């Protein structure tokens, strides 16, 4: 059989930034035994980006609200399927389930759908539709797999996201003079644990007086987190860098001493960290990790080997784990190295190969 033709439908794709965007791009780039066409939304800087990347990308003009853009994407998908003639439809988000339903009915093409976590609680009806029409659900963690199974999905494959195993700035790994704990995350959701980090800082300071906490990422919670740091008397140890480019982010990963993001399962019925790819990225840069013992981090962090998994609501436990790593550099370095090793298992070519197997198998059946 010749290389299967895969129509990837995704509302999220670079040059727009974000986790799903990155995942969709790396898959499209690394599925070497498939012919992939990406159907996604337009973007102001898409033209030069698409030319540079050399992928087969079809863009639907997106100029309205996100909801309207997604509706346009769904509407365009059937037409694109007619043109392209896919063997498999790969949905990168449950919001394109209506398009997948139509294509599946019209062309009897198998559908694979990615699931993360947060989107399921946000739009349960679409999640249920996705489960019904998908020949296979691709869950990005054990945590997500359980969510999919709870929705009634029978065929669920666990394929974690991957990482770029060779960092762009691999040259210098000279760590900063000042002991530095790093968090990379947007400040839009409380469950990411920025608040717990702030509560932990005074306790870390008793063991590491000149510690600083650098935060890369921005969001609506930034102001209240800044005020929380002031209330707890640690504003001078907090460095909020805001949203930075990849190069600066990599520089922080190269020069910090510990990566910490004690994500917790959020309150209510909402899902939290689907996988936490950022923990693996920290590993790529040789950083030991402190993460919350729950959700997707359980797959990304090996407790005691690549970092420490702690109760993410207990700032004293978080402080203890971070202090240990900062005050025992040899152990921290060992964990950082183990993290680098662990991250290699998640290199994109390996991840794409696992997805390729699913695609080949589905295409054969279709």
């Amino acid at each position, binding site marked *: 059989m010749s290389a299967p033709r895969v129509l990837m439908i995704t509302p999220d794709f670079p040059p727009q930034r974000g986790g799903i965007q990155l995942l969709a791009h790396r898959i499209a780039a690394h599925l070497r035994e498939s012919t992939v066409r990406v159907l996604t939304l337009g973007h102001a800087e898409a033209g030069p980006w698409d030319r540079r990347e050399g992928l087969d990308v079809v863009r639907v003009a997106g100029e309205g609200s996100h909801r309207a853009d997604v509706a346009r994407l769904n509407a365009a998908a059937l037409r694109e399927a007619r043109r392209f003639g896919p063997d498999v439809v790969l949905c990168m988000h449950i919001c394109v389930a209506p398009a997948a339903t139509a294509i599946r009915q019209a062309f009897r093409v198998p559908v694979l759908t990615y699931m993360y976590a947060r989107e399921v609680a946000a739009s349960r009806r679409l999640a249920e539709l996705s489960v019904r029409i998908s020949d296979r659900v691709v869950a990005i963690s054990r945590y997500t797999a359980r969510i999919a199974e709870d929705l009634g999905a029978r065929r669920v494959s666990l394929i974690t996201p991957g990482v770029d195993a060779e960092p762009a700035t691999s040259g210098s790994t000279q760590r900063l003079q000042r002991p530095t704990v790093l968090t990379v995350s947007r400040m839009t959701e409380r469950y990411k644990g920025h608040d717990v980090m702030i509560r932990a800082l*005074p306790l870390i300071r008793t063991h590491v007086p000149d510690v600083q906490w650098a935060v890369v990422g921005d969001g609506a919670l930034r102001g209240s987190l800044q005020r929380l740091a002031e209330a707890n008397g640690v504003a001078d140890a907090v460095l909020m860098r805001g949203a930075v480019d990849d190069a600066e982010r990599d520089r922080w990963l190269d020069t910090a001493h510990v990566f910490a993001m004690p994500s917790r399962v959020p309150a209510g019925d909402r899902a939290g960290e689907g996988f936490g790819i950022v923990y693996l990225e920290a590993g790529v840069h040789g950083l030991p990790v402190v993460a919350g013992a729950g959700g997707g981090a359980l797959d990304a962090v090996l407790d005691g080997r690549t970092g420490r998994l702690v109760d993410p609501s207990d700032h004293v436990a978080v402080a203890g784990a971070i202090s240990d790593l900062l005050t025992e550099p040899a152990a921290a370095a060992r964990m950082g190295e183990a993290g680098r090793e662990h991250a290699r298992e998640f290199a994109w070519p390996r991840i794409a190969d696992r997805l390729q197997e699913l695609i080949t198998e589905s295409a054969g059946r279709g």
Partner: protein
Amino acid sequence: MNAEIVHRGPDDAGVHVDPGSGVALGARRLSIIDLADGHQPVINETGTVAGALNGEIYNFESLREELLRAGHRLRSRCDTEVLVHLYEEHGPDMVHALEGMYAFVIWDAQRRRLLAARDRFGEKPLFYVARGRELVLASEATALTRTGQASSAVSAAALDEYFVLGYVQAPRSIFAEIRQLPPAHLLTWSQERPHPSVTRYWSPPAPSGEPTEEPFAELVDEAEELLARSMRGRLHADVPVGLFLSGGVDSALVGAFAADQISGTLKTFTVGYDVGGTSEAVPARALAAALHSDHHELVLTGSEMAVRAPATLARLDQPLADQAFVPLHLLAAQARREVTVVVGGEGSDELFGGYPRVRWMDLAGRMARRLPDSALRSVGAASRRLPAGGRAGRFAQMLATRSLAERHLGCVTAGRPGTRASVYGPALAPLADSDLARGWGVEQVPGRHAAADLMRLDQTRWLPDDVLAKADRATMLTSLEMRTPFLHRELGEFAASLPAETHLADDGKAIVRALVRRRIGPEFAKRAKRPFAVPVGDWLRGSLGATLGEQVAGSALYRDGWFAAEPVGRLLAAHRRGEADHSAVLWPLFSLGCWWEAQE
């Protein structure tokens, strides 16, 4: 001094003396967890660190785990032992690990350093007197005066503050020589540098002025999760736990969580009055039925109050004009027959925006900024012609007041600042114009909502010095421990991260009301805030008025020139004849008079 505070801990007592330094720690214990092994003070294995704790550390079990992991050896399941080892691990920064209500003292014999701290919201009191190379601390100010450790001379400034506000603000105490450690503060003292250093280790985060982008339902989820976590810590006890049920939304919500989390039937306690219109008993009964609790109701009659109030107020540690103190203490005494620990809804109003006046004052301030001075003067004049105590009159009065701090003071004290000139005697008269709002840090700034500042003010002043002082004193006098699930550090930080308008929607306490709707039912979420739930006006017209009359005629409070007998007597007579309601002035004087006599 241990003998002076037996009511705080009738089950056990201990003293530790460090012979090398002459430092002694004493403690009394009310046994709640680890009934057998909780003896205090606790001393570490090497005898170098000793600690005594008043209150509870709710996260002591996870702290214990963390300390064991770090190599400490602990012998008991008691939170005081955790404190001692936590001090070894973190020094004074240990306070950042604590979640609870506490005042504690730690003596480090090696460094010859003493550390004392008070919890973040001010649930447990701590008083001290520093004189030369001496420092004496106690949970009660009167434990210091009665044992001769401090003079019982009162402070005129504190008396002025008391008359206007109804309570004394930390760091002052009613006694000139005694200081009170404010909430969320640390005191360190060493024999080398004997002047105590007092520093703040936490403050409620400054509120946001921006509207939040987070969906309201997610905020309610977050509050529910934090409150559930808070309850788990606060229901942990090896003795029976009950609930003070007021009929309002706060204790209702605490009750809903408690009923879910405890094994067995929840015991609930409510106080009601025989005078009509002010009883909480009826709504509390409906709530108790919804919670399936074992409900107990105390009905206080005017004649019972006449007998019990003077003696109860005499047992206050510092004067307090809160009208609910006596009923709360009598309810606590009833509850103590059934339980050792109670939970209550205290703190919800201050953290979650329960006071409607906050919104009114904010609105008045924004309107006043647009009006010229002449218009405001007319409004002020008109307000004096409107019925006293009526809504329109109060709002007009707010509008006519330029400064936000004055507006707040006038509102929460029912206008007492303006009566000082007439009721103060010669000893207090120089203070009749003192600016008590100085240092409050509230001012109306164009473009900013004043509501958030006012909520913060309530949280940092009124909450510790009135609400929590009342709750602690009313319960501990009868050896009952009160725990307050709303005063959870993370819940407080969460509440402060939201803009005032989120809290003030839905007639105030929007998040609490949403949770009551979710956990109990919509019919229980509607209860409005009642400004006066205690019928003191009626009581003062009865025999309590006669007692006040005796004070005016014979007490040293008037004889020594603190207050002027003649104008107070006139107000009392008018009140008793039913010509006007002067209880806002008379009750603080009555309560003070009862306390004063006990000091003599």
